[in-house]
């Protein structure tokens, strides 16, 4: 089984925000990938953006730039 590592997980208010995040990150070559919101974070079943902890600033910058509002930013094992 793959060993879990600490990652940055950004959650959103809506699924469409997460989809918009994926689109903009692909366009701008921002690192990360779409994952289901980890169960440890939420009982909901939405999508979240997962990246390395070191990518935090770059990710938050691009979100601010395009106006995608995060629900929360977590650090958790993924």
């Amino acid at each position, binding site marked *: 089984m793959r060993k879990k590592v600490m990652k940055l997980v950004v959650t959103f208010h809506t699924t469409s925000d997460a*989809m918009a995040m994926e689109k903009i990150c692909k366009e701008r070559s921002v690192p990360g990938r779409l994952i289901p919101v980890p169960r440890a974070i939420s009982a909901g079943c939405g999508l979240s953006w997962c990246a390395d902890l070191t990518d935090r600033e770059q990710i938050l910058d691009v979100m601010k730039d395009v106006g995608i509002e995060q629900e929360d930013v977590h650090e958790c094992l993924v």
Partner: protein
Amino acid sequence: MNLSDSKKKLALAGVVCGIVAACLAALGNPANMAFCIACFIRDTAGAMGLHQAEVVQYARPEIIGLVLGAFIISVATKEYRSTAGSSPMIRFVLGVIIMIGALVFLGCPLRMVLRMSAGDLNAWVAFVGFILGVGTGVFALKNGFSLGRAHITNKSSGAVLPAVVVGILILATCTTLFKASQAGPGSMHAPIIASLVGGLVFGAFAQKSRMCFAGSIRDIILMKNFDLISVIAGLFVVMLVFNIATGRFVVGFNTPGVIAHSEHLWNILGMYTVGFAAVLAGGCPLRQLILAGQGSSDSAVTVVGMFVGSAICHNFGLAASGTALNPETKEVVAGAVPVNGKVACIICIVICFIIAFTNKREEAK
């Protein structure tokens, strides 16, 4: 115990839910309807007099247990969040649509999987439609579909549906106000206490594992993520073993007694409608009940839509009939979808497309 940190534990949650369904089937629930959200909401609506189909009227304690199980476990583990405000009337319409699609097929996605595990090939045909429906919903998501965000509301708002189902339970057990079928599927049920406990356990495990039939397919298509499907796989395997062990596993299409029909196109389109609408609503019928239990008023509105949808189905002759054995002639009478049901199903698909492609995410200003 954390049920969600590995696929094995998620599958275990599915196994527990499968055992609950198998027990309820053994204790008297109708064949291949061991645990069906659409059918049981329809039966409960019938018991309350929302429709007059005499063979499907019974206040199913499983539905009550599911909502309460999710409510109790979410409060106990501090996951209860009272939220509302994400396009409630569109969600109501999606609830109606989900129910119409489900009753054209004759079952919700949960029952589709139970029927698949019993060898019912009609359910396997419908599964194709379900995948296509979820796929269409995912396409809409990729194109910016959104019903808007939900907001935190007063805690009491999210507790309304759990309170209502407690009221239904009290009325069903302490009064004679509710109707109860004397024949047909509505007359076949496990003892009340078993159904209620089964619902509570199923609801608690479904809340913890985030079990969702539409979500599991959505996650595979969108992210190649197989976490949620492992819950469904656990459920399927248990029911498969149960059906084989008890001689209920019969491979075939026109099998009398399993409450199914073999109009392939309408099995596909019925579940296409359910899959499409479920992705737009953010979860399958089971998931809507669980989300409503853990505080989502938006999901509660979808559940109310499903209640009204079931009444519409039976009051306007939309629901399909199952293949049955004529008791006098002993001939097999093929089940069918009535013309009204076919027209309604097409209208529902059109409405899903309108909802999917007219509700867009608001771009940042």
